[in-house]
């Protein structure tokens, strides 16, 4: 499915290409920066990187409006950034700061930004299908032309919610778009071991849903396929399934020993298909070396600024832990506990290690 390089592009198409490239570079810089800071101990918890898959996030979100919805996965940094979330808000969240987009309560795996229609990363594989079906249903109920996009991995297509929600969206003609990032692996398990088909897209046929299979390293190709899908959805034509053939160039999570594949495999794929290199080549003369460098420089500055912002932000107040599970009185969460915890501090003779200030290494 690897395509030969497309010819250089011109005019509007080149402007779009540069925009896609900018997004992909920003994602790459963000992901590499997260990797570095995770290993340095600045970021607790788990983190899954999308290096190699940037074209899917960039190509898809470039076609969406801010009021369209997306649901993401555990591997969601790229989707979030591409949908319009600020790098500051994201990095502060990953650094577990009070200024994070989720106040430090979500972290990498549960990041969301409702101001840009980003309904959340998800710690549960296939957790997004229902949310997207519902968002699409909501657009119908409210009679808007919004669309809802679900990002998901190949692994997620073996879970029940995939099947139930594809069927539902198809039979109700909902404005949903299912964007599969088929990166050949689900954690340590290759797709070949968990399904007997090469193209997951054929499953869509089983539900009567149109599908496309695209080169997931080519942001233009993704953009075009999503263009068709959004047009169909906004005009009442129902859902579309878009399978993007792509590859995860890093471990499943940061720190993955990756015993399940050869290093060579990664090098081969990235040499042939790195979506950023690909786009630069496609743009040809439309983008000179200096402009290309400038994109990197801007992205790095943006990331450095985000890290500085996160670093200068406070950790959440400890009692914030007890609030926010319910609407209304903020203390409705667990008032007893909050009060007790405050009292406890008063006579606890030994300081419990609450990690104030230092964020610990986290894994």
């Amino acid at each position: 499915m690897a395509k030969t390089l497309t010819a250089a592009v011109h005019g509007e198409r080149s402007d779009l290409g540069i925009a896609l490239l900018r997004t992909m570079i920003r994602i790459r810089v963000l992901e590499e920066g997260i990797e570095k800071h995770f290993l340095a101990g600045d970021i607790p918890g788990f983190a899954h990187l999308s290096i190699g898959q940037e074209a899917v996030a960039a190509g898809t979100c470039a076609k969406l409006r801010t009021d369209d919805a997306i649901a993401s996965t555990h591997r969601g940094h790229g989707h979030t950034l591409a949908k319009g979330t600020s790098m500051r808000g994201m990095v502060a969240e990953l650094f577990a700061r009070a200024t994070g987009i989720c106040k430090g309560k979500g972290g990498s795996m549960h990041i969301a930004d409702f101001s840009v229609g980003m309904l959340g990363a998800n710690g549960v594989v296939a957790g997004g299908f229902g949310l997207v079906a519902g968002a699409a249903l909501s657009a119908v109920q409210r009679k808007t032309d919004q669309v809802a996009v679900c990002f998901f991995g190949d692994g997620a297509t073996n879970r029940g919610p995939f099947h139930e929600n594809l069927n539902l969206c198809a039979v109700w003609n909902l404005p949903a778009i299912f964007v599969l990032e088929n990166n050949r692996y689900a954690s340590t398990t290759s797709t070949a071991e968990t399904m007997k088909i090469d193209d997951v897209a054929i499953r869509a046929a089983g539900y009567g849903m149109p599908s496309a299979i695209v080169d997931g390293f080519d942001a233009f190709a993704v953009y075009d396929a999503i263009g068709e899908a959004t047009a169909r959805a906004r005009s009442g034509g129902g859902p579309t399934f878009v399978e993007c053939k792509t590859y995860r160039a890093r471990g499943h999570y940061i720190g993955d020993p990756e015993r399940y594949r050869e290093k060579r495999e990664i090098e081969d794929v990235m040499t042939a298909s790195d979506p950023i290199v690909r786009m630069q080549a496609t743009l040809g003369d439309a983008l000179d070396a200096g402009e290309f460098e400038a994109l990197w420089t801007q992205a790095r500055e943006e990331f450095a600024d985000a890290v500085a912002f996160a670093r200068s932000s406070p950790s959440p107040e400890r009692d914030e832990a007890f609030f926010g599970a319910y609407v209304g009185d903020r203390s409705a969460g667990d008032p007893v506990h909050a009060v007790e915890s405050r009292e406890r501090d008063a006579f606890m003779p030994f300081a419990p290690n609450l990690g104030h200030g230092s964020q610990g290494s986290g894994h």
Partner: protein
Amino acid sequence: MSRTITFTEATLEAMREEMRRDPTVFLMGEDIAKQGGIFGQFRGLPQEFGFDRVRDTPISEAALVGAGVGAALTGCRPVVDMHFADFITCAMDEVVNQAAKLRYMFGEQCIVPMTLRAPDGITKSAGSQHSQALEGWFVHTPGLEVVIPADAEDAKGLLKAAIRSDNPTLYFEHKMLFPQKGPVPDDDDFVVPIGKAKTMRDGEDVAIVTYGITVGRAIEAATLLEAEGIRATVINLRTVWPLDYDAIADAVARTHRVVVAHEAVRVGGVGAEIASFIGEHCFDELDAPVLRLGAAHVPVPFAPVLQEAMYPRAAMIADAARRLVRRDV
């Protein structure tokens, strides 16, 4: 005689011994065979027993548990790994409406000797969807057994007991316990009986009734208290259903003051059952209210400072016990 091994090794020994002993025992789960499990808890098993008895599966929790139930009904003793306990939610029908109920509904024609292994609990910033302790739901579901090891000895003995049990048994293993070391008896046939608690420490001033990872925290608390002249009993329940009510009543009768602690959410948790049992059946033994410690009634937050504030650690347990003994409550 005993050896000191990690919790992980203890579970591996249990799996090896039971798989050798009974050819109908097999294991399935996501990323367990080739990779050896996220915590290394399956390492080496496929090499000994083959990839048919140690199966990697698609991400299909409902199918896994459903198939586990089916296999159990028809002569196998499957062990199904849930990857993270949180994902049992993806197979709730299979656990709650199928596994738990079939034997009863079908007039005892069948057994469901399935073991669900579910790594649970709060780890460093794993966040809301990878940190839960959900045993309360299953204690509330008639038909299931729920065991929760606290150390390497329990890990081995309870896993063997779970596999041998003819009932569907949930085995919640705390993620933070895997690397911890502890003594395990040499005996090949060492089994920890389901439904029996263990007294980890004896003291007459206060009893800490707990299970799972919180047992270690309670022992730490008891050590802190000892330095202050307060002697605490620590009861490791080992099984949370069926509960060892006798052991609980004994501890209450000896100490008259009780702290019940677990990492699961306090509201509606197993501790509530224990506290109300004490209230109903040990009323005259109580010299102070039963204090219950559990996680706050909020999802587990990501930021370390928030996470550490919301579940009972040794200092909080010691504190509760101290308040009881000093008659502050």
